[in-house]
């Protein structure tokens, strides 16, 4: 493409020369000046070009000939004309002709010229000399020939004199035409070169050249002259090439080509980047059918996947892989071996599914890791790395979540422009006219429909203004009910947990008593969300806000879940710790005995480990692994439950509804079971809580992150499929807020909650004595102290001890609090000013609209007056007009004066509109509803429509 353009520009120049030359050969010299004067730059050129036979043009276009032959031709053509006599040769277009000729005839000169154009000063001087010489030779014009120097760059000979004179004249003429408007947009012109553009550019180059020529005589200061000179010179250098002459041509062609290539590359790269966003297509497809609210879940899921992938990279790269590659192999030491009593069943499927047996003594869990300070040739400090990754997981997650929230908040503020012509824009601009694929078109249909639906819901929300007191009362009531049920379930959980602790000490338990806790919990989880949803109907929020409330409430409920789980877990840990204490003492005692005996017998103080198979060694319960197993089990069962729910709750239901519908008493699709809707709140919360489990469990089971990555990956495909195959869009498709910040907020909360227990265990609980990377230490974080002591220079140790001093920490905390306070108030101030500005903009817009409307309406009134003058009195139609106008403005701000309180605004405005337009309105409106098919719909529909929306 760029090439082509370039060639065409070259061609055009050449063509024009040819055309004009042929003219001059014909002796039609007088015609040309006229033409020049009459037509503008482009037109003249076009016509000149058109003159010459088309076939020639075609040839040149297609042959891609380089300019050399043409130049030769030009030179050949030129020579005769020159010979014919310098005096009457009035060739205007030929500023390039002399050069060309010279290019053909005298190549040596050319080299000199090129140099000149490079170097401004010397060029000027030379030009001057040349001019002087020329002047002497020709003995003609002194002033006029100044112009020529720019063009000819001081190389002109006497025979060119006449040309130059004419040239100058022409230039002046042209300058008069174009200089006024041509300077402004000179710089952006390099992109595409049409003929008109070419001509304009050429003139500008001419001008600049002239400027260069006469700049000496300008009564300016030297500085200004230099600046101007440099600018002009640069411009000439830059654009002369476009005109197919000067040494810049090739360079220019190259540059243009590269610019275009670069732009194309950028565009391709952008496309490529979009194509690289994983699942973008899938999500867009879902969005087009189910609206942005459902898509927001999938976007959230994708985000989670990305984050977990990074966590996975950390954990596996820094902990698991080094251990596998460089650590001791399986079976070498007790903690890496399945104990002998468990060995017969260690490979059973059921055992493995419980993550016992070989699973338990694998790299997936905490207990497998050795407490060797460094492993392998690289002296990899595995225990330190383990701790750092454990803490880094939280650090990274916190950072990412907060960063994303901040970024999302940024996005949220951007769309202040919306809301003026929402429907009109959707109506007139939504179709993408480049769609050529039937499937894409289907998606586009769906997405247009969805977006209309979303807008309808938003509008309905804006126009709701019924009994505000009733609404408030209902909302308070709903919140009260929900608080009650939350409190009730909280107490129930507390009660059941207490009972289960009681039960834990007894043996004679019925099945129910054993599983009471789980049953109650799942019952609550089953009953409460729908209950909340039902109660939320009372509140009649916009679905988007309702979703947030729903999420918050279920979240609160699930916190109870979390609480019981943690409670049970810490119970277990405590018992394990006690048990471990006993075993530890016993084994230490045994070892001591052994060593005592050993040294007594062998008389050797060197400690040789007892000759025991690693699987026979007595070992402690290793509570960390137990906790890890607990979390992994929970995660896996969660995955199973989620997937089964989708399979049964959505897929089976859809299949039944779809196929049993043929032989059923009532319409299954429209009636009771119907198809499932996608449960946004449930899915989001499931994801959030699952992530909480991962964060808590990752420290005790490094493999958990891997499992989670697999889960998210599969769930992306599975749920995308499920939602497209089995679900129907929500009854009220609503537009999700652009930022997923509410989800993120929940995630942050759960992150914080899961941070607490983990940090607590790291800081306070003693690690198991015989398993895991921290065995043998009194606290897990001792590994850091050890590293500081052993690996870092001594002064670092003292530095750290100073840093750990409360006297330093307390001021630091204070400082941070102050910083937070400061930043917070600054952001508030910004927010305020933002709101202020928004308000101002809105006001300005309204004002403008008002003004416009008023003028319009007055015009309209005048028109109406004229129309009506013969017919009726003017009074009635005129007044309502201006009064009506302010109504639409008032609506966006939601403050409805609304005397007719219950009317949906739509109808109100339409109803208001009808009486006003004197003749046409009333006539047209009624037939609308009645006449065409759809008509009755809207008419009744709006009446009916008022019922549903407040729902």
């Amino acid at each position: 493409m760029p090439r082509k353009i370039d060639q065409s520009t070259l061609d055009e120049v050449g063509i024009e020369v040819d055309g004009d030359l042929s003219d001059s050969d014909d002796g039609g010299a007088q015609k040309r000046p006229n033409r020049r004067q009459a037509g503008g730059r482009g037109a003249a050129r076009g016509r000149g070009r058109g003159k010459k036979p088309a076939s020639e043009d075609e040839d040149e276009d297609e042959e891609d000939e380089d300019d050399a032959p043409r130049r030769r031709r030009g030179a050949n053509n030129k020579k005769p004309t020159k010979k014919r006599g310098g005096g009457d040769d009035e060739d205007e277009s030929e500023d390039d002709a002399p050069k060309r000729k010279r290019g053909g005839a005298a190549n040596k000169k050319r080299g000199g010229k090129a140099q000149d154009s490079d170097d401004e000063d010397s060029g000027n001087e030379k030009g001057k000399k040349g001019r002087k010489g020329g002047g002497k030779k020709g003995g003609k014009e002194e002033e006029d020939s100044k112009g020529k120097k720019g063009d000819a760059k001081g190389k002109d000979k006497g025979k060119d004199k006449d040309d130059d004179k004419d040239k100058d004249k022409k230039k002046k003429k042209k300058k008069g035409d174009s200089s006024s408007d041509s300077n402004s947009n000179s710089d952006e012109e390099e992109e595409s070169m049409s003929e008109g553009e070419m001509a304009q550019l050429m003139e500008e180059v001419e001008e600049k050249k002239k400027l260069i020529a006469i700049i000496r005589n300008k009564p300016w200061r030297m500085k200004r002259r230099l600046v101007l000179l440099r600018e002009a010179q640069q411009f000439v250098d830059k654009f002369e090439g476009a005109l197919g002459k000067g040494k810049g041509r090739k360079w220019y062609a190259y540059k243009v080509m590269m610019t275009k290539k670069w732009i194309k590359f950028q565009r391709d790269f952008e496309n490529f980047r979009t194509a690289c966003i994983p699942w973008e297509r899938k999500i867009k497809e879902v969005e087009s059918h189910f609206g942005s609210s459902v898509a927001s879940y999938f976007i959230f899921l994708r985000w989670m996947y990305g984050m977990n992938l990074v966590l996975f990279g950390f954990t596996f790269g820094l902990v698991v892989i080094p251990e596998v590659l460089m650590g001791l192999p399986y079976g070498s030491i007790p903690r890496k071996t399945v104990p002998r009593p468990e060995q017969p069943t260690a490979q059973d499927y059921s055992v493995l599914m419980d993550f016992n047996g070989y699973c338990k003594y694998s790299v997936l869990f905490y207990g497998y890791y050795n407490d060797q300070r460094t492993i392998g040739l690289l002296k990899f400090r595995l225990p330190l790395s383990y701790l750092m990754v454990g803490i880094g997981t939280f650090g990274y997650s916190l950072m990412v979540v907060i960063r994303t929230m901040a970024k999302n908040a940024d996005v949220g503020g951007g769309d202040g422009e919306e809301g003026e012509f929402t429907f009109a824009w959707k109506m007139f601009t939504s179709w993408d006219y480049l769609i050529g694929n039937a499937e894409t078109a289907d998606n586009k249909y769906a997405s247009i429909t969805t977006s209309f639906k979303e807008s309808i819901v938003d509008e309905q929300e804006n126009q709701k203004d019924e009994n505000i007191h009733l609404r408030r009362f209902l909302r308070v009531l709903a919140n009260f009910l929900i608080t009650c049920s939350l409190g009730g379930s909280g107490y129930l959980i507390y009660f059941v947990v207490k009972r289960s602790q009681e039960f834990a000490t007894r043996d004679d338990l019925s099945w129910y008593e054993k599983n009471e806790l789980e049953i109650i919990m799942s019952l609550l989880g089953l009953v409460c969300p729908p209950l909340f949803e039902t109660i939320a109907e009372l509140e009649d929020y916009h679905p988007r806000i309702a979703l947030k409330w729903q999420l918050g409430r279920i979240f609160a409920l699930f916190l109870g879940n979390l609480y019981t789980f943690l409670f049970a877990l810490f119970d277990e840990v405590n018992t394990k710790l006690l048990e471990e204490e006993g075993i530890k003492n016993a084994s230490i005692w045994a070892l001591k005995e052994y060593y005592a005996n050993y040294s007594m017998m062998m008389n050797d103080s060197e400690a040789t480990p007892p000759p025991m198979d690693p699987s026979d060694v007595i070992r402690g319960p290793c509570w960390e692994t137990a906790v890890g197993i607990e979390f992994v089990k929970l995660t896996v069962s969660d995955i199973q439950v989620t997937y089964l729910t989708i399979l049964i709750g959505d897929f089976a239901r859809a299949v039944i509804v779809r196929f049993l519908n043929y032989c059923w008493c009532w319409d299954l699709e429209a009636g009771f079971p119907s198809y499932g809707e996608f449960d946004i709140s449930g899915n989001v919360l499931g994801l959030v809580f699952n992530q909480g489990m991962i964060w808590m469990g990752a420290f005790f089971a490094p493999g958990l992150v891997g499992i989670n990555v697999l889960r998210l990956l599969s769930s992306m495909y599975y749920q995308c499929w499920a939602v497209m195959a089995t679900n129907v869009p929500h009854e009220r498709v609503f537009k999700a807020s652009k930022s997923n910040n509410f989800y993120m907020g929940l995630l942050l909360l759960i992150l914080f909650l899961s941070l607490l227990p983990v940090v607590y265990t790291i800081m306070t609980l003693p690690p198991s004595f015989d398993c895991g990377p921290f065995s043998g230490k009194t606290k897990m974080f001792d590994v850091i102290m050890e590293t500081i002591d052993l690996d870092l220079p001594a002064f670092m140790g003292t530095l750290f001890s100073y840093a750990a001093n409360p006297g330093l920490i307390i001021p630091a905390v204070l400082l941070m609090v102050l910083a937070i306070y400061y930043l917070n108030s600054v952001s508030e101030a910004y927010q305020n000013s933002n709101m202020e500005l928004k308000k101002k903009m809105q006001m300005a817009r309204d004002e403008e609209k008002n003004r416009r409307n008023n003028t319009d309406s007055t015009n309209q009134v005048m028109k109406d007056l004229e129309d009506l003058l013969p017919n009726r009195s003017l009074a009635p139609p005129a007044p309502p007009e201006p009064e009506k106008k302010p109504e639409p403005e008032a609506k966006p701000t939601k403050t409805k004066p609304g005397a007719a309180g219950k009317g949906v605004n739509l109808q109100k405005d339409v109803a208001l509109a009808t009486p006003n337009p004197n003749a046409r309105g009333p006539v047209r409106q009624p037939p609308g509803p009645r006449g065409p098919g759809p008509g009755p719909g809207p008419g009744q529909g709006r009446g009916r429509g008022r019922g549903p929306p407040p729902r």
Partner: protein
Amino acid sequence: MGSRASTLLREEEIEEIKKETGFSHSQITRLYSRFTSLDKGENGTLSREDFQRIPELAINPLGDRIINAFFPEGEDQVNFRGFMRTLAHFRPIEDNEKNKNASTNEPLNSRTNKLLFAFRLYDLDRDDKISRDELLQVLRMMVGVNISDEQLGSIADRTIQEADTNGDNSISFNEFIKVLEKVDVEQKMSIRFLH
């Protein structure tokens, strides 16, 4: 293909088209070969069926309207001149043309003319007003049966209400321009024809 066009297309014709539409010579020849390839009847004119064979138009809900825009009122054939005249609406506006607009009469690819073209797509009965019924028809083309009639009605009402400034319950061309004031029509309604 250029040579073929040049044999079929007389020089004067090209000149006139060039003057009228602002296309360059090579663009015209290129478009002419496209024209002839669309012309299955080989009779130098295009019929509606010829246009409907273009997939982009076939699946476009407004495809019929766009095709209609090619045909002068009451005719069902369009020759190359008419074809080019319609296409000229989509020629990008070049920088230097902006300056010229003031002096010469408005070229086909000016913002106003582009908007007028779009306006005509919606103005089914060519009375220079988009009425509620016309909006409804277009809406039905665009969203099909997925939205109930009552909602479609309210969408149309809303659209008119948003755009209508003089209270005649329909959208005039001036109102249409105002609605799309902020839309970059010059860019969106431009096709980069090959040079």
